């Protein structure tokens, strides 16, 4: 049987990808950011999953305003890095896991989570920057990936509560897959940041640290945070933190924190990262 072995949360700032791709990872502004992921890199070498369900958002890369799916699952054989306006990132093609992706799709839709099925999907920094942070610059990514895209750029995004329940349903789907697979769920985006309006540059360290604490100590409180509170506290783009709740929901009632990292700033964003295990 497939099982969920861990959850990883991380920000997915595009400038992190650019720093790595352009050989600037050792510069003073970026070194502390990459060092914050060394623990997870080493841990992943010993605890490598077969498949990562990678919860992220598309930033006007695959989905234009013509179609804005609230939840979309990538069921393709592989996914190419998107050209976000400056050429595609020089990273490997992302390989999917079609049997598990379709099993999850069937299971979730039958549980009334009406996912959009995507059979052709280019993946942007939201998905590839977390892979780079965890695996560096390999010739090929060492895991299969099932992209799960959540709309957070067109109001209203799904609620945090809905995201948490989706995570719970993903766990049930994974556990009913007959093949013996180790599966991790990654929640990406956040933490506090805002790109729009006069408040651009907003960072709220107290909110972020509280959010990290509550992932293990009081996830119930995180499920109740509404959109307005997210935007006021974590900034207009900080609402991406709902994607962390999909990951948290998939870990079950209790989870154990193995590692955390918090750093301000990477470009416009507070970088948050945590590795968790079901407890």
């Amino acid at each position, binding site marked *: 049987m497939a099982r969920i072995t861990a959850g990883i949360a991380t920000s997915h700032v595009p400038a992190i990808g650019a720093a790595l791709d352009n050989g600037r990872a050792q510069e003073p502004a970026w070194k502390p950011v990459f060092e914050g992921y060394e623990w997870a890199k080493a841990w992943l070498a010993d605890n490598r999953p077969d498949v990562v369900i990678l919860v992220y958002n598309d930033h006007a890369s695959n989905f234009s*305003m013509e179609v804005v799916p609230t939840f979309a699952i990538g069921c393709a054989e592989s996914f190419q890095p998107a050209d976000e*306006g400056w050429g595609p990132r020089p990273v490997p093609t992302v390989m999917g896991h079609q049997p598990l992706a379709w099993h999850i799709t069937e299971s979730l839709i039958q549980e009334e989570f009406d996912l959009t099925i995507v059979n052709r999907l280019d993946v942007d920094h939201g998905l590839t920057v977390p892979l780079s942070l965890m695996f560096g610059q390999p010739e090929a990514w060492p895991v299969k990936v099932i992209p799960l895209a959540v709309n957070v750029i067109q109001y209203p995004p799904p609620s945090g509560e809905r995201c948490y329940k989706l995570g719970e349903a993903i766990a049930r789907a994974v556990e009913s897959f007959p093949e013996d697979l180790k599966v991790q769920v990654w929640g990406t985006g956040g933490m506090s940041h805002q790109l729009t*309006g*006069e408040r651009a540059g907003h960072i709220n360290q107290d909110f972020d640290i509280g959010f990290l604490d509550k992932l293990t100590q009081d996830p119930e409180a995180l499920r109740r945070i509404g959109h307005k509170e997210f935007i006021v506290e974590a900034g*207009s783009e900080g609402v991406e933190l709902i994607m962390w709740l999909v990951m948290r929901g998939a870990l079950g009632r209790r989870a154990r924190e193995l590692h955390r990292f918090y750093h301000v700033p990477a470009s*416009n964003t507070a970088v948050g990262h945590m590795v968790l295990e079901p407890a």
Partner: protein
Amino acid sequence: MSGRQQLRSNDIPGTIVFTGELARKGFGLNQFCMSLMKPENRVRFKADERAYLNAWSLDEAQKDAVVARDYARMLELGGNIFFVLKLAATDGKSTQSVAASLAGQSVEDYAEMMRAGGRRPAALAA
């Protein structure tokens, strides 16, 4: 409680929430921005900005904002931040430079503010 809130685009001071109203207003502008993901379109746009813009459903105010690279105006006219960032990328400009212009700060002042920990939440109350 969660999921039952209806926000308008300007309900939160200093912040733009990209509502359906803005999406309706900005559809043509955002479609134009999306076209800049193709290298050949970036070349055509740079060669003659007005001519390229005329092929898309933007109104004159939106075209003027694009040509002036007035990002605050683009967002006011329905541009979505992640779409207008394609225009910045076409110019070789960073996300941070766009954020600085939206905040009404110089790129240097904004970058310094971020290095010092970002804009503090208390600033919202002012």
